[in-house]
């Protein structure tokens, strides 16, 4: 075997060295090596979004990435977004609006929504619009399109959208 370069990965601000099997996905690294089980495995094939985390601020599917590829990267997981004693605004809104039923897709939904809000601020376009920076809280259809990378098997979509809108509205108001 050729030498596998070590990867030094910052997860929620703490550095971890990874020297193991290069087959390890970023998702399994988080769950199995670090014991951070907030990030979920739904499909393991990029089809559901349950494994969404931020890599250097951008949302990605951690199941379709190798841990060794993340040398020098900063990862943020749901644990880094907020814990029960200190919930983020999005997390509070999900609780208030019942933005889930079983809760399995929820960490991915929240990580995804947090990054989506930044994409909106950066005026990224979507399949529906040419950018909506001028509109602080976009339409439901716009949010659904931008959240389409996260499936919810329980079908809690209406409440998920309500939670995201509420959190975005509060951010605008503050």
């Amino acid at each position: 075997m050729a030498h596998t370069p070590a990867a030094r990965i910052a997860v929620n601000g703490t550095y971890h060295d990874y020297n193991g099997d290069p087959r390890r996905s970023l998702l399994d690294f988080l769950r199995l090596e670090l014991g951070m089980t907030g990030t979920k495995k739904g499909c393991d094939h990029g089809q559901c979004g349950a494994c969404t985390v931020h890599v250097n601020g951008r949302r990605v599917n951690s199941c379709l990435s190798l841990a060794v590829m993340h040398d020098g990267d900063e990862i943020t997981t749901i644990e880094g977004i907020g814990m029960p004693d200190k919930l983020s605004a999005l997390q509070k809104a999900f609780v208030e609006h019942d933005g889930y039923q079983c809760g399995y897709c929820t960490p991915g939904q929240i990580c995804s929504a947090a990054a989506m809000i930044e994409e909106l601020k950066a005026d990224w376009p979507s399949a529906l619009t040419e950018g909506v920076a001028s509109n602080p809280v976009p339409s439901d259809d716009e949010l659904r399109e931008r959240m389409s990378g996260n499936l919810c098997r329980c079908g809690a979509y209406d409440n998920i959208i309500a939670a995201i809108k509420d959190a975005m509205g509060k951010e605008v108001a503050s």
Partner: protein
Amino acid sequence: MKAFDYARAADLPDAVGSDAKLIAGGTNLLDLMKLEVETPDALLDINRIGLDLIEPEGDGLRVGALVTNSDCAADARVRKDWPLLSKAILAGASPQLRNKATTGGNLCQRTRCGYFMDNQSPCNKREPGTGCAAQGGFNRIHAILGTSDACIATYPGDMAVALSALDAQVVIAGRSDSRTVRVRDFHVLPGDAPQHENVLQPGEVITGVTLPAPVEGVQIYRKVRDRASYAFALMSVAAVIRMDQGRIAHAQLAFGSLAHKPWHDPRIEELLKGETPTPALFDKAADLLLEDAKGYGANDFKIPLARRTLAAVLAEATGV
């Protein structure tokens, strides 16, 4: 997943000529490695070789091979002068996937044929000489144009369909020199060797895509699929249409998910040029497109679907 050696390329010369399988975003390759459809002995990570910028080139633009789909679609120059490309990218995959997917990897993504991906059915693409389970099988997503007895799979992507309509070029670095291939010639028909999907030779690396000078006109990407988002195309149309005094002055068209490559038929563009747009004209255009179309049962519907989608796009573009 089969075991493999992993290494990182430091720069382009490191990557060119390598026997290892290149990995960029990994969103297609790792998916197929998990299924053991792809079983490379060695992976070479090209994410740190640069080539991640979008820069002017002549009157056009050069999009580096490692530019993510998200960055390309959000680029102000792309949105202003080549909106078709931005629209096609945004019609594909999901925001999370587009954040990882790269220009080079997207071009090289493999077919979504279920028999290719199941890793056990007869499949000439995965294991040459074993047959094609899709013929006589479940072939709803399969090709109706340019098929062969060996394979009826489609190239499933969206970005390359826009690049074909725009007549962009793929820039490729090889062991001895670099070359440029039109996107229209980059992907190949299956013929009797469906294991080959494009003209890349072993050791070659895509360094980028160049967009020619912007063309005036309405730019439309219309994708028909089973759900509103996050699904591959059943078929798609990429169109650039310019009108002049009630007539079609210029047309560039390409079609997705109808064939093993983004489909481009210059005869359609010629036919439309100089004509007054009418439903009858659109029908003639569809006649040309579908002249040799062949359904395989479950995908027969793609023939009338392609006709109607082309007509709808032309009507929208010309204001009929």
